[in-house]
């Protein structure tokens, strides 16, 4: 594996070399290269020399784990002037990259380091140490380890030996980082753009309700800039209004003066502020109180037994308000550690001697800031030690039975390979504010808002089953009652009477009515004997046969329709029956003669015509026509007149086509009375013409 990594680095070196040959060539700061601008060359070399002095101070401070102050910034101030004169010098690019790595512009280092290796593929072994840091910033941990190994292999200088503790720590970081980076915590980290500037913003402090923020910024202010154009730190505030933070406002004197103030800890209620500033290169923790709308003049927080020639800087209240935690750089080895002091006499502001929070928290590297959670048991702090994934990271430790637990890295993306510091938490633990010099900000160190998502919210999947068959095939079978046959019974009242055809007298006869379509006998009744009437109901809309039967009468049969009517209907049907019984004597009451004569009068023809019909209907019928008188007058005349009248009727019938041999005419005079001759009515009845059926 080691062999492979070495091969990889050799290939990289070859590529750098190849690239250089094609595209770039190192330009040394020597007169032969700048014949036209020797003054410029001299100035550049002077700047490099000045820069080198600061770079050396800075690098030594790093090795000593001391405050690098502004050494690297100042080194850059000079180097960048020389760089403008000659940007193609490998060594200067390397030095700029080196310096940048220890400033809040460290994300710019790669650009210069890449140029340097292109211009000089065979750099000083220290180059690989810094390039390993560049790769770490790019989250290229594997490459980072390859470069740090190359540095260890090739660097033989005293400095390399001095940096051993850093290389060991660095390899530990690179080995551990992937596990942290690959499992990002559930939070967003957003640049709080509204409060940031191109200069440094840092040390955010927030009230417990999360609605008031105090920060420190080195943006241009009303004070004079220093010799390299940098401004002193001032204290600013911002409020959370209508769902957004307001633009920061410089709190002015007495908090912001022309000294370099830094706000470090805000009481949970926002009424007191811990801050520090350097006076004669010495920093002590100060406190200011909010009186109405104004902050009081900052006063030393601690009694003199704590304030020292060393620096007491970033401090935090704790909820019981009996301790103050702060960063102290006064230990023998000079690195910054977290200390705390407890109040001994509040009225006299007497504090106990400051002491370390312990080796579980403090490392041989720098601890940079501290924040006590309102629960009083949880400490958030930044450190270059522990399992940082690069630069300062933010950690959490808890006080359990008086001992701080092993710090836990707050994880990516709160922590990055860059410097991630400070931690101001709101009481609901949803938001925190940090400062970081990671890339993508507005410039330098910026304030970031951390929004914690809380426990993972599980999305809900829904399944569905059709547990019941009726869900799939709903039962909608509804059998209907069946259609019905339309049974419309329209009845017709069928009435009439049965009478003798000739005499019109009522007859009691048998009437049988048959439905011709079915042959069904619908009715079988007798007509009334006195009136000959019958009355019955028949279904309409059919064809019927009616047969009328009476002994001695010709059988009567006929066919008739009863029309379909929706309402009441009455059909009248009279039946005339023809008497054909031998011996029957029928008086022709409607046959009339001229008085005393045998001449038929015209009103006789109607009845005689019916007799003609009867004889035509029954051809075998033979009759005797007889004339009769009453007993008035002589019998001889009566006899003669009756004979003549019988003959007269016979003649008429013959004249109507009836064969004479079927007719016999005979006068009986008054010999056969049928009534009394003693009354006119009786005599009227006795005066008559009869026929008697003699054969049929």
């Amino acid at each position, binding site marked *: 594996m080691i062999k492979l990594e070495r091969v990889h680095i050799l290939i990289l070196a070859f590529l750098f070399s190849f690239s250089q040959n094609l595209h770039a060539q190192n330009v040394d700061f020597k007169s032969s290269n700048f014949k036209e601008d020797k003054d410029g060359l001299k100035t550049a070399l002077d700047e490099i020399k000045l820069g080198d002095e600061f770079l050396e101070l800075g690098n030594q401070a790093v090795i000593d784990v001391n405050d690098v102050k502004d050494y690297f910034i100042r080194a850059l101030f000079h180097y960048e002037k020389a760089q403008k004169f000659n940007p193609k010098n490998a060594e200067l690019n390397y030095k700029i990259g080196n310096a940048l790595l220890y400033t809040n512009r460290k994300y710019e280092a790669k650009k210069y380091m890449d140029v340097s290796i292109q211009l000089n593929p065979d750099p000083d072994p220290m180059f690989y140490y810094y390039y390993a840091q560049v790769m770490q910033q790019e989250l290229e941990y594997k490459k980072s380890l390859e470069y740090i190994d190359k540095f260890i292999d090739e660097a033989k200088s005293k400095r390399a030996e001095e940096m051993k503790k850093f290389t060991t720590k660095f390899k530990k970081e690179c080995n551990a980082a992937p596990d942290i980076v690959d499992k990002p915590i559930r939070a*967003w980290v957003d640049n709080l753009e509204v409060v940031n500037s191109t200069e440094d913003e840092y040390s955010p402090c927030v009230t417990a309700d*999360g609605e008031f923020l105090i920060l420190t910024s080195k943006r241009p202010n009303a004070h004079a800039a220093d010799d390299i154009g940098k401004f002193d730190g001032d204290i600013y505030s911002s409020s959370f209004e209508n769902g957004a933070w307001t633009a920061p406002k410089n709190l002015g004197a007495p908090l912001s003066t022309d000294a370099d103030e830094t706000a470090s800890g805000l009481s949970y209620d926002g009424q007191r502020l811990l801050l520090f500033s350097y006076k004669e290169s010495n920093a002590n923790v100060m406190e200011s109180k909010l009186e109405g709308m104004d902050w009081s003049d900052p006063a030393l927080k601690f009694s003199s037994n704590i304030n020292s020639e060393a620096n007491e800087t970033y401090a935090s209240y704790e909820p019981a308000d009996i301790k103050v935690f702060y960063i102290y750089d006064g230990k023998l080895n000079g690195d910054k550690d977290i200390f705390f002091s407890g109040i001994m006499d509040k009225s006299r502001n007497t504090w106990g001697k400051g002491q370390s929070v312990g080796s579980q928290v403090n490392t041989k590297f720098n601890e940079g800031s501290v924040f006590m959670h309102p629960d009083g048991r949880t400490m958030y702090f930044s450190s270059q030690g522990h399992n940082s994934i690069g630069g300062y990271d933010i950690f959490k430790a808890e006080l359990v039975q008086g001992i701080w637990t092993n710090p836990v890295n707050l994880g990516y993306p709160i922590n990055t390979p860059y410097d991630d510091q400070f931690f101001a938490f709101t009481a*609901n633990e*949803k938001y925190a504010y940090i400062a970081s010099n990671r890339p993508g900000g507005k410039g330098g160190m910026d304030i970031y808002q951390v929004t914690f*998502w*809380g426990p993972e*919210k599980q*999305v*809900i*999947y*829904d*399944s*569905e*089953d*059709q*547990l*019941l*068959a*009726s*869900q*799939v*095939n709903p*039962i*909608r079978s*509804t*059998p*209907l*009652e*069946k*259609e*019905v*046959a*339309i*049974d*419309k*019974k*329209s*009845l*017709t*009242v069928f*009435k009439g009477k049965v009478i003798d055809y000739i005499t019109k007298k009522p007859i009691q006869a048998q009437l049988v009515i048959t439905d011709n379509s079915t042959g069904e006998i619908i009715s079988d009744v007798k007509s009334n004997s006195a009136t000959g009437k019958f*009355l019955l*109901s028949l279904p*309409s809309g059919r064809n019927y046969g009616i047969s009328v039967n009476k002994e001695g009468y010709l059988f009567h049969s006929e066919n008739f329709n009863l029309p379909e*009517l*929706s*309402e*009441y*209907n*009455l059909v*009248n049907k009279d039946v005339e029956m023809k008497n054909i019984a031998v011996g029957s004597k029928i008086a022709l009451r409607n046959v009339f003669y001229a008085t005393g004569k045998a001449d038929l009068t015209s009103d006789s023809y109607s009845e005689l015509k019916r007799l003609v019909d009867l004889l035509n209907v029954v051809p075998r019928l033979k009759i005797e026509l007889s004339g009769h008188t009453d007993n008035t007058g002589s019998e001889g005349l009566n006899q003669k007149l009756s004979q003549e009248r019988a003959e007269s009727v016979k003649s008429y019938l013959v004249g109507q086509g009836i064969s004479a041999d079927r007719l016999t005419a005979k006068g009986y005079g008054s010999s056969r009375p049928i009534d009394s001759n003693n009354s006119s009515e009786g005599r009227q009845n006795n005066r008559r013409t009869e026929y008697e059926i003699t054969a049929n």
Partner: protein
Amino acid sequence: MKITITIIALLSFCALNAQEADSSLTDVEKAFRDSIAALNLESDILAKSQESYNKGIESYNAGQFDAAIGHFSDALSLNPVMLQSYYNRGASYYAKEQYDAAINDFSKVLEMDESHYNALFQRGMCRYSSGSMEEAIGDFMEANMANPGQEGPVYQLGTIYFLLQKYDESITYFSNCIKLNPKKPDYFNDRGSAYRMKKDYVNAAKDYEQALAINDNLAYVKNNLGSVKKLMGDQNAALVSYDYATLSDGDYYIAFNNKGVVLCEQGKYEEGMKSFDRAIAGNKSYAISYNNRGAAKFKMEYYKEAVKDFNQAILLDPNYVNAYVNRGIAREMARDQKGACSDWKKADELGSNAGRKFYINNCND
């Protein structure tokens, strides 16, 4: 009563005409004539009633239920004692899901014939459909007594007890159905589901398998078997059954949906999404699969795409509470906290505990 008044009125009119037409009739003859006229009128009205009734059946069979109701009503206006018209009108109302009106008509039938099996059964169906379960049980019990050999009332009793979560009773009635007709897979499926609800997954699986032994082409039974296998902890067997269901019916979106859920639970979100795609292809109105696809997209961190699917689920079902919860979660991750809170509030209003918890914990800043 109505028909009597009509007849009397018309009879008077006809009698008057008859008098004018034939004044020679004797009183007896007049009485006879009038009685015939009355009969004719009654017959005519009955015939018209029958005609309307038959037209009603014709309309019903053509699916024209409004027209059918009109015809049956006409028949009843002419003949208010025609049981068949009440029954068929009740059936028409039932077809239109106008359950109260249908129940009234079936009740009228039962006033005339208290053991009318079909009226009892159909009234029970109406009451079941309108959620009056206890009354429906009464009807089905009476129908069962009126005609003990019929499977319908027994099956409905099993179904109602299932819906009332009285699974022991439900199993009893479904078992009775199986005795009456052991060749019907529906009865095994439904009894299996009752076992399932009792968490008796072994017997549930047996019944589902028996149903499939009778008819192996029932996709919904295969799906149910898959879900029981899942409940038994055998996700792979569940996937096999869901696949088997979709082989029976390539558009059976429910099985595709359930398969997708199992795949997502196995962390196979890509495959899960494909299965949800198939479910949606089978039923473009299936809100559940839009919700689930949104959930899969969320797990793949496609938050905005997930929100689109949740939007569609809510569009299809505005009261889909889990879709609101899920959309809130996705919106939060898409940095739309206001929208997320609005969704969780809505979910809370719809009765979601998760929605309530998320709203309280995240929306009171």
